């Protein structure tokens, strides 16, 4: 790989958040090397989504720090972090329900290009935006439904749209929270392919939360395991897969499947 840089692109130190008395993320320290794909796994409620929320700025931590390329971003707001290149998808579908599919994606591109505050020109004049949005929809196999309001999509399609919005943001770092949950078996490969392609371009860093072990094993450069908010392992896929602790806490018999 062309990783010229050996400093971690994201580093978190003793990151903690408490909701009332409960520590959803507890003293997690972790580094992500640039241009790699790191998976985060763990039982339900382990704190994966919360961890993402902390990185993308949806939540403010109770303690600890987040660094992006060595810079402390702990106190930046979500939109600011988004502009710095942190993009995320949501575990539970989070789209603009009444806008068309195309518009959903176009808005993301517009946000990236930063002319949200432009109010002098008709939005259709920014045609490059629309073309690009359409292109992305093609990639995630949603181009036929570009004129549908997003709330009329089925569950699986909404997941794909979520993915498309993220791709439109072209973030340097992608956080993917269970991108394939609810997607039909037939379509998972398409998403996998997208991920693989993004990965092979070699200029993106990806953090992935998934429960589909085969997918994780195929894609990941490294895997971190969370349990009860704590980081219990962080290593290469093989080691994790063999680790007894992980087997017991997370995989159960499911590891044997397919």
């Amino acid at each position, binding site marked *: 790989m062309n990783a010229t840089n050996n400093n971690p692109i994201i580093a978190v130190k003793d990151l903690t958040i408490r*909701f009332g008395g409960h520590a959803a993320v507890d003293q997690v320290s972790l580094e992500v090397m640039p241009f790699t794909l790191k998976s985060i*796994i*763990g*039982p*339900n*409620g*382990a*704190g*994966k*989504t*919360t961890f993402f929320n902390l990185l993308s700025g949806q939540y403010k931590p109770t303690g600890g720090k987040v660094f992006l390329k060595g810079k402390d971003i702990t106190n930046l707001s979500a939109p600011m972090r988004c502009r710095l290149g942190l993009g995320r998808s949501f*575990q*539970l579908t989070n789209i603009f329900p009444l806008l068309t599919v195309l518009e959903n994606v176009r808005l993301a591109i517009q946000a990236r290009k930063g002319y949200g505050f432009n109010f002098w020109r008709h939005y259709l004049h920014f045609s490059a935006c629309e073309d690009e949005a359409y292109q992305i929809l093609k990639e995630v196999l949603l181009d036929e439904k570009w004129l549908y309001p997003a709330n009329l999509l*089925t*569950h*699986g*399609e909404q997941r*794909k749209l979520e993915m498309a919005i993220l791709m439109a943001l072209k973030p340097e770092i992608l956080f993917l*929270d*269970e991108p394939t*949950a*609810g*997607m*039909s*078996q*037939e*379509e*998972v*490969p398409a998403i996998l392919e997208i991920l693989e392609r993004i990965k092979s371009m070699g200029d993106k860093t990806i953090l992935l939360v998934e*429960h589909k*072990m*085969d997918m994780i094993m195929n894609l990941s450069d490294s895997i971190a395991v969370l349990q009860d908010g704590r980081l219990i392992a962080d290593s290469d896929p093989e080691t994790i897969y063999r680790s007894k602790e992980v087997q017991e*806490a*997370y*995989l*159960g*018999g*499911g*590891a044997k*499947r*397919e």
Partner: protein
Amino acid sequence: MNDAVLKADNLQTYIGHHHILQGISFEARADAVTVLIGRNGAGKSTTLKTLMGLLPPSEGVIVYNGMNIQGKRPYEIARMGIGYVPEDMGIFADLTVEENFKVAKLKEDEATAGRLDRILELFGALGKFWHAPAGNLSGGQKQMLAIGRAMVNNISLLLIDEPSKGLAPIIVEALIEAINQIKEECVVVLVEQNFYMASAVGDYFHILDDGRIVHSGRMEALVDDEELKSRYLGISKSKS
């Protein structure tokens, strides 16, 4: 006992102006798990909603335990002992986990309490967040709550929409176990994308495509039928 407990015949359902279900007919037998599979947008969820009375079909008959329940209101159907887990989980986010269960419980008796204990054993996390607002649960925990809620009553038919999504493998295993247990007492109709789970619990399958059933049979047959799997489910051997 191999009678059809639930029988759907020629269901036609419209949503707005869209003809979504275009003649769905199938049966669900006692002691068995019937799995509906198919690609996104095939109409699986719509089928369950139609059965539940949430989307009244414009045509067709639904017979349950020898009674025509087509046209009945959802709450009447539910009171006949039918549990339902929707794909968006239908959590009451402002209510606590406890209150979610309270709303779900139709009776307060010992049997219900026993079932609740079993559910909490199966999904340990729920007990831990008993008094927390359900909206704060993690994705998987919500899914657990949705399933648990549906099973707390004495039901004889369970309609579940994609229960395994978002659940950790170890929980999926437990869920498979649980479904295999309850199918003794209760008919299960399952919509599932996770073929592993579908094949582990399913006895019969129906493949939906474009609002129609295009293939039905016993699950074992499907597991071995590579052609069918790759045609409708996009599962090719090399990918395993």
